[in-house]
């Protein structure tokens, strides 16, 4: 079983997000980056599948500037076998189709049985790269996996639907699967894993060797959301708050 896990380095949830002067994106110089949290679940699932099936290879693949090698190394420290870094220069790509084409150009010769991705990235949140790549590589696709079960040349996936519904789907391999957060408990790298990761291979692909040049979608500007509502703030002691709430329920919303 040869498994690719696509990961991304994104701003951490606690970091400040200063907007660039031209509003084109945030000022990454002032941002601290982490592994995209949903990707941890995809890495864990890949390692579990490898352990269950008894053999194979887990390859961490990431696109990004030089800093992205940190998250590839993190995956290697957890037990993945090698990494591929699709290098980017300047501002990060935000066009899912061209990102998927870059990945596809590199992944197609590797002949992976499985491509795993997290649910979505916490930065641009496009939530489609894994499925785009699956289609481009002629793979079957499944999303929001809550459980996986690899058998012979198929993978059974328990998909999360809405409103508490689930569905089992059996897909022929090769397949591209997006993993729902929370389905497993991602492991921490051991000290031995961290030491060992330093010796593992990361293949670096320069921008000219993966970029297609056709960009059809972009983020023009980012801005701080304006509150869309007039909010009445009720502070102070509990008795006064209770009186005001009763009044609101009676006179404003009229539910009493």
């Amino acid at each position, binding site marked *: 079983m040869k498994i690719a896990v696509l990961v991304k380095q994104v*701003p951490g*949830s606690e970091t400040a*997000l200063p907007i660039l002067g031209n509003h084109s994106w945030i000022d990454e110089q002032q941002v601290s980056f982490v592994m995209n949290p949903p990707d941890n679940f995809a890495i864990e699932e890949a390692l579990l599948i490898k352990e269950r099936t008894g053999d194979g290879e887990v390859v961490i693949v990431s696109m990004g500037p030089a800093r992205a090698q940190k998250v590839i190394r993190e995956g290697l420290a957890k037990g993945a076998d090698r990494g591929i870094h699709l290098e980017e220069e300047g501002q990060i790509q935000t*066009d*899912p*189709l061209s990102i*998927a084409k870059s990945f596809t150009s590199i992944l197609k010769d590797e002949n992976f049985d499985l491509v795993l991705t997290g649910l979505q990235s*916490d*930065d641009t*949140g*496009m939530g*489609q790269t894994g*499925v*785009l790549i*699956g*289609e*481009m590589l002629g793979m*079957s696709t*499944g*999303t*929001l996996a809550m459980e996986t079960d690899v058998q012979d040349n198929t993978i059974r996936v328990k*998909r*999360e*639907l*809405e*409103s*508490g*519904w*689930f*569905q*089992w789907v*059996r897909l022929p391999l090769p397949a591209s699967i997006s993993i*729902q957060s929370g389905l497993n408990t991602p492991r921490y790298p051991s000290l031995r894993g961290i030491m060992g990761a330093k010796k593992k291979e990361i293949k670096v692909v320069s921008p000219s060797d993966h970029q297609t040049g056709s*960009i*059809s*979608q972009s*983020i*023009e*500007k*980012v*801005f701080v*959301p304006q509150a869309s*509502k*007039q*909010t*009445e703030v*009720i*502070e102070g002691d*509990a008795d006064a*708050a*209770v*009186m*005001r*709430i*009763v009044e*609101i*329920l009676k006179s404003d*919303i009229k*539910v*009493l």
Partner: protein
Amino acid sequence: MDILVILEDNRGSLHRMSKEAIAGAQKMGGSISALAIGSNADALAEELSGVDLVEVITVSHDLVSSYNADGYSEVVKQVIESESPQTIVIGHSYQTRDFMPRVSAKLDIPFIPDIISMDDGIVKQVLNAKLNASCSTSAEQMILSFQSAAFSDEDMASGSCTSRTFDSNLDSATVRAESEEPFQEAAGDVDLEAAELLVSIGRGIEKEENIQIAFDLAKALGAEVSASRPVVDSGWVEPFRQVGSSGQNVSPKLYFSLGISGAIQHVVGMKGSKNILAINKDPDAPIFEIADYAVVGDVLEIVPKLIEALHN
């Protein structure tokens, strides 16, 4: 055709987000048609017979009688190729995430997902909803998906429309996935989506023993009880009470939120509520940004007193 709205079948009737997508398309303007796929396609078309659309295109084929990503993406691709809409519009549901990128890749049409507004360009949330981004495309056609409650289904303009059958050309080799019947792990008899009043519990309730005060408040108000994912994951209430992207989408007259911080995954499921009254200890809780009434205080202190006041 300017806009093609792709409809979603929610066990025999239109998914609420499909109605919101129609309302959004109508707001964008131009000639709008809709596409219904599957064994319930005619029922969905019938449901829209009083809505201001050019027509509902229906596709019923054995290979897409129920949803599967292989078949749906192929059908949608064929309809787009045949009808050449400039914009393809759909609700940003789990099903959309599952198959719409396939359409985008097949036709090389950019897919801008999870849009919250079309007022000032195409706006989506980025960086965990801390910032908004306006997006653009240079392509001639585009696919847009609207976040839950970006538009209101009540704004769907009435009128009339016809329906037409589209003959899709599907090969059994197209559908590679074998899909089993959908199931619920814990079915409940509570219909949150139909509830007029909801009392909703978040992590701020602190302990399982405290859940009772939410049920007592709900009883005093004649409301149903719902909850955020962490409360459900802790096993304090049943999964069918969960509101949010992985639970129910609700839009009651009153959403009374008790100790819910307001993570984006929760907010997308309830921000369409007519009135949001939130109690939270943390004055910076994100829930207050969308609340009509923000009560800064301790749920465990305020709610028992409120129940007492309601009984008097």
